[in-house]
């Protein structure tokens, strides 16, 4: 049914750990960049917020060695909620918490469809928390296209690896598309028209989230 020749593989606890770890590495490497973006239309803390949170997530995961994917997601979500604060803490926290709730308890492997269901639940959590819509110039504008691309790629039977790459590419496009937008949600909305011409910091960190996912899935 598809021309894709790769194995569709499966998401394991190791995949999730890799995802979180690479995301930590990417936000750390991009700490100054994220804060730079947040200086232009926010309060200059998005880089340190994400780095602090993901450092704690990786430390926590390493110290308790969760046994299932749901546990991993829940632990990551709880840790983010407890250590980040700001807008990104509850939003990224809710994302992972909802991913966790949508994962069958005890599962240590997920196929691409089940994993997609988790991610979709995460996105819905972000929307439930933050009420952002497409075009509001938030992390939603990177996350929603990323999931759409993931679903579409999986839908045509492609590998998890291909789906990860597609999601990352779509997130990056979504991030870039935030530049001309007038912010409607979050701190940048106080700037009104002055928010135009700047990339939303959350969309940039979300792009890193999907780049990290692409790397983690490349081993599946």
């Amino acid at each position: 049914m598809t021309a894709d020749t790769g194995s569709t593989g499966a998401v394991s606890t190791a995949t999730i750990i890799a995802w979180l770890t690479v995301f930590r590495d990417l936000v750390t490497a991009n700490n100054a960049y994220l804060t730079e973006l947040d200086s232009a239309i926010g309060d200059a803390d998005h880089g340190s917020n994400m780095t602090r949170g993901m450092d704690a997530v990786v430390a926590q995961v390493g110290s308790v060695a969760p046994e299932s994917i749901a546990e991993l997601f829940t632990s990551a979500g709880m840790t983010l909620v407890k250590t980040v604060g700001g807008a990104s803490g509850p939003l990224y926290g809710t994302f992972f918490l909802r991913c966790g709730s949508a994962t069958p308890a005890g599962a240590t492997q997920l196929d691409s469809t089940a994993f997609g269901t988790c991610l979709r639940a995460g996105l819905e959590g972000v929307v439930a928390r933050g009420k952002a819509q497409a075009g509001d110039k938030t992390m939603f504008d990177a996350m929603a296209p990323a999931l759409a691309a993931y679903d579409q790629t999986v839908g045509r039977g492609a590998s998890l690896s291909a789906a990860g790459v597609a999601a990352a590419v779509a997130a990056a496009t979504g991030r870039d598309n935030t530049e001309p937008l007038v912010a409607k949600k979050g701190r940048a909305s106080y700037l009104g028209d002055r928010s135009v011409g700047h990339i939303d910091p959350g969309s940039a960190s979300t792009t890193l989230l999907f780049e990290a996912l692409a790397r983690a899935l490349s081993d599946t």
Partner: protein
Amino acid sequence: MKKLINDPSSVVRDALIGIAAAHPELRIDHENRIIYRGDTPKKGKVGLISGGGSGHEPLHGGFVGYGMLDAACAGEVFTSPTPDQMLEATKQVDGGAGVLHIVKNYTGDVLNFEMAAELAASETGVAVESVVTNDDVAVQDSLWTAGRRGVGVTVLLEKIVGAAAEAGQDLAQIAALARRINESGRSMGMALTSCTVPAAGKPTFDLPEGEMELGVGIHGEPGRTRVPTGTARDIAAQLVDPILRDLDFVGSPVIVMLNGMGGTPLLELYLMFGEVAAILNRSGVTVARNLVGNYITSLEMTGCSVTVLKTDNDMLKLWDAPVNTAGLRWGA
């Protein structure tokens, strides 16, 4: 970056150690970064908690004490605290009469307090009410945006509802009073220079000689517009006019706060207050009480904000009631 700190990542922790050393009358939970009144919980009194990013001192930790807050949760610099901090504070200050969460309208603060309230509802029997302040007229309000920021009114609100809680009002009354105060107050701010977030290491924005940011908040975020600087008199008008256009203050006694952003000398704040008071007088607004000084700051940003709160005799009585905190003290 020039700051009196040890390390950008330990600023809040280290400052809490100093606060503990300076104020033995307070109780500091260093792990959860919560500043408590020494005598909280007080049986039968509604507990009042607030919190927010650090860097706005004396807000909120400086307003913990008799006649004001029971606890304040400190976040990282300009980053709202987390739900577990607020949940812990909520449990600790409940004297059986419930707890009011005083939240400034920023997405981060609102979301984290919201999660805390959900946790309090599911994990404890504590009755929680939340009031969100959103008094900043610089921001155009709309159902479809994050709305206005909560700024100066928060200070006045914490004082007044603090006195109401001390006087024994119940949670519903206090929440209603808090909402009424928020609806009756408006603020507007400006900055001559940016501040520097310690972890960022450089000023959030550059503001050349001759220019100012009009309509800034308290997080070093750029304002609504960048305009030429002017005399104190001009600037006072640019702050007061939008406030008076937004709400009718004639006919009720008002409390005015001329607030410094942190780096502006008191001499200039008094000078600005003189200009603000003159405009209010000319506009027929009766200034019954005032505060001049650094109350809700943005690190070392220079600039100021004006807050005008419409009151009545009951509110003024609560305002005049004794308060004993590090940042605001009278009658005690």
